[in-house]
């Protein structure tokens, strides 16, 4: 899902970096107190897992790519702050080592997938767990794909409006919202189902091992 380098204007990614910097500072506050010999290997393992899922990318017409995220799993086990940090780390590694995503797109990708995705997963699971915990995890995982997808689509779709030549030719991403929203969200309806199934399977296993916070 995440946006590659070169398609976001400075008017978008520079303010996004300012917002993301605040979010990263909030997430990292007191981090050392929360990392111990039990938490660190679990966090590293699930960060690697999220990275592995994110490597399998399918280009989607309209300007982005589809792949599993793993953010719901990270958030349900470690909470929003650690999930956000570890997913930001995944995005940084992908950008610097594999040219996937990118430095200019990092704050939007991190805020959309890492922060909004993690917050959505935890909030939905908390709201629905009293009814049916497995269904709550599945819905949380599905929405943790769809909401970030919508944000990514909006970030791309507003580029022709905010960065264009005097004659209207786009300078960065060329497609407007009427293309990016369906192009991103329709494939992710199915990708989200895959994410939900995988998250439930692994979350159950993690719960049986008492890994969940």
């Amino acid at each position, binding site marked *: 899902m995440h946006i*590659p380098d070169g398609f976001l204007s400075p008017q978008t990614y520079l303010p996004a970096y300012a917002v993301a910097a605040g979010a990263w500072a909030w997430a990292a506050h007191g981090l050392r107190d929360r990392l111990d010999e039990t938490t660190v*290997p679990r966090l590293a393992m699930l960060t690697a897992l999220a990275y*592995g899922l994110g490597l399998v990318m399918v280009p989607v017409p309209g300007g982005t790519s589809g792949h599993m995220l793993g953010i719901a799993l990270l958030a349900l086990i470690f909470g929003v702050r650690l999930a956000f940090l570890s997913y930001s780390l995944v995005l940084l*590694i992908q950008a610097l080592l594999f040219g996937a995503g*990118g430095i200019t797109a990092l704050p939007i990708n991190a805020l959309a997938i890492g922060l909004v995705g993690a917050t959505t997963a935890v909030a939905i699971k908390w709201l629905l767990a009293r009814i049916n915990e497995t269904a709550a995890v599945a819905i949380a995982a599905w929405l943790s794909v769809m909401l970030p997808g919508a944000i990514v689509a909006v970030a791309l779709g507003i580029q022709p409006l905010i960065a264009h030549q005097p004659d209207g*030719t786009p300078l960065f991403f060329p497609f407007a919202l009427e293309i990016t929203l369906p192009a991103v969200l329709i494939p992710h309806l199915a990708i989200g189902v895959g994410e939900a199934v995988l998250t439930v399977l692994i979350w159950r296993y993690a719960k049986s091992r008492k890994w969940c916070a």
Partner: protein
Amino acid sequence: MSPRAWLVTYLIAVVATTFVHEPALLGATLAVALAAAGGGRWKLLRRTLVAILVFNLTVSLGYIAVALWHGDFNPDYLLLVNLRVLLLVFLGMWFAARIDPIAAVSGVSPSLTFVATLTLGQLRSFERIVSDFALAFASRNPAPPRLIDRAHHAAAQGIALMDKTMAAATESALAMRSRGAFDD
């Protein structure tokens, strides 16, 4: 230059690139970057092209189709956006090949550097296990596997991955603890 200086230079170059909207200038900058990248330039360029090819092709073909439909096709835009993406990704590949990114950011947060280092170790373990599972699955399925078989394989693989990487990560963490990594 120190890893930190490389990082700062790379970030400045990335931001500057996004303010350039002249294909000729972007092309000249790419030529300079290629010349400066040294002996590994063609390998880096090949990796860059592989990384961006499918995505940029999708966007470019989509743009051509939509712009021709609307009657406002502009070839300069295609040149601009593809050169910009190529340059940005090449700069990233060059930076990562030249400098250990973990070393470059190590002073920012010792805790995050610690997690990042452990994660990179996990990635290696993860890739090896995935490769082993894929080979084993292929050898057991001379005919194309059914969807349910693939699902069972994925579930078994996920659990095996977690067990193995958890064990490896725990060993690493305990080893680091024994060396005082968690001491204040």
